């Protein structure tokens, strides 16, 4: 970065190069996922199935579902993001794209940020879009559903960003799945607590701006810190392979 060689364009063009690279990484991820829709659809199906288990397994009563609905949807979203994390770097790792990314002149953490954002667009965003439907199915009220969508909109990027650290750390390993969950779920707990807490407060017609602001703070913190940790983890995993 700070090695200003004679051939390096300085100043504005450099930052333009970074943005272009981030855009290229993000679009590349989106395109390759749309060509394999299986990866796109499976987490969504999983999300719906997990939500479905609760009325069947615990109780289909309206009172229970209204009380627990927000928590069920949040937990299901969390698990489905967790399941999809393994794909985040795996394909690029297998075909060597990841090594090329590490060799790029652009800082790795920004490219990782772009990849995490692509992951969110592919998993988090569809979950948010599916939430109103499932919210109606668990008898949440209109206001609660709106707040739930909002918390998931702020919260799922945090899940993708933190999850990227775990995905990068477990990259070269054989039994990555369980290990990934063991490492990442404890770190997801604050997001879950505030996500469901906000919807509960909305259900009691209490003001939610404070809690939403805190979730926004989580998002900013994850956006600024998590890519550095993921980039460091990626370098470690690649040097291991």
């Amino acid at each position, binding site marked *: 970065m700070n090695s200003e060689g004679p051939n390096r364009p300085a100043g504005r063009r450099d930052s333009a190069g970074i943005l272009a690279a981030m855009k290229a990484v993000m679009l590349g991820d989106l395109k390759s996922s749309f060509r394999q829709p299986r990866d796109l659809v499976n987490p969504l199906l999983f999300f719906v199935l997990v939500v479905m288990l609760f009325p069947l397994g615990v109780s289909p009563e309206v009172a229970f579902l209204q009380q627990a609905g927000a928590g069920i949807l949040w937990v299901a979203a969390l698990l489905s993001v967790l399941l999809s994390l393994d794909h985040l770097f795996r394909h690029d790792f297998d075909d060597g794209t990841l090594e090329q990314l590490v060799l790029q002149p652009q800082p790795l953490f920004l490219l990782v940020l772009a990849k995490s954002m692509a992951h969110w667009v592919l998993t988090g965003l569809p979950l948010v879009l599916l939430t109103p439907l499932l919210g109606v199915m668990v008898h949440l009220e209109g206001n609660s559903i709106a707040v739930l969508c909002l918390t998931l909109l702020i919260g799922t990027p945090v899940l993708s960003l*933190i999850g990227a*650290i775990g995905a990068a*750390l*477990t990259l*070269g*390993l054989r*039994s990555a799945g369980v*290990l990934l969950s*063991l*490492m990442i*779920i*404890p*770190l997801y*707990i*604050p997001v879950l*607590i*505030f996500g469901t*807490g906000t919807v509960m407060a909305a259900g009691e017609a209490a003001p939610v701006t404070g809690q939403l602001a805190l979730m926004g703070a*989580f998002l900013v913190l994850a956006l600024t*810190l998590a890519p550095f*940790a993921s980039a*460091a*983890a990626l370098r*470690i*995993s690649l*040097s*291991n392979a």
Partner: protein
Amino acid sequence: MWQLFHKLGSPKWFYGIASRLMPWLLWTGVALFMAGIIWGLAFAPPDYLQGNSYRIIFIHVPSAFLAQSVYIMMAVAALVTLVWRMKLADVFVKSAAPVGALLTFLALFTGAVWGKPTWGTWWIWDARLTSMLILLFLYFGAIALGSAIADEKSSARAVAVLVLVGVVNIPIIKYSVEWWNTLHQPATFKLTEKPSMPADMWVPLLMAVLGLYLLFGWLACLRMQTEILVREGRTRWVKELVRPGGNA
């Protein structure tokens, strides 16, 4: 200063120092801890409200103290691993993690035993309890990741990243669960205030805490020595050390 730094990085030097330090740590630790425990369990006055059941704090509070500070020590060592690639720091992280997990479990267990007569329940989803449980899983995660990666260097650095991410999260987890739900009383000792209990209670408690710190130091040294012997098995000084009749 730099010389000391380089020396600290040398496993052989540490091995020697630890051997000399360990008897002191062990016996002072045992003396302090046992004195604190015996004083606390047998001679300290019973609590006016809880009777004798409060006495479990003489084990509960020291282990809870240690459970948290071990993680912070590990985080410092993790930073040293990442920044200076010091071998010993990683040896410490690997050796301390299971001990930390054990202490966290002990704190949870004694808390449960105390909670049954006092709160009337073994477990409750309270802020402190939940965050300690999460701490236990952070320890488990670090141990699992460390044992999953075969290569020693990558394993060290990967665990270091995970431990550091965990330490950023600990305050967030702590406050999030605290605002969420709380029953546990506030911290027993604060650096800034005089303890709210009589000296007959807090002096033995403090002794038990300090004693357990020393005992942890001893155990950490012992485990680090073992780990060093395993890792440096091919060097000459280890071969001389473990050869029958050899004396270092």
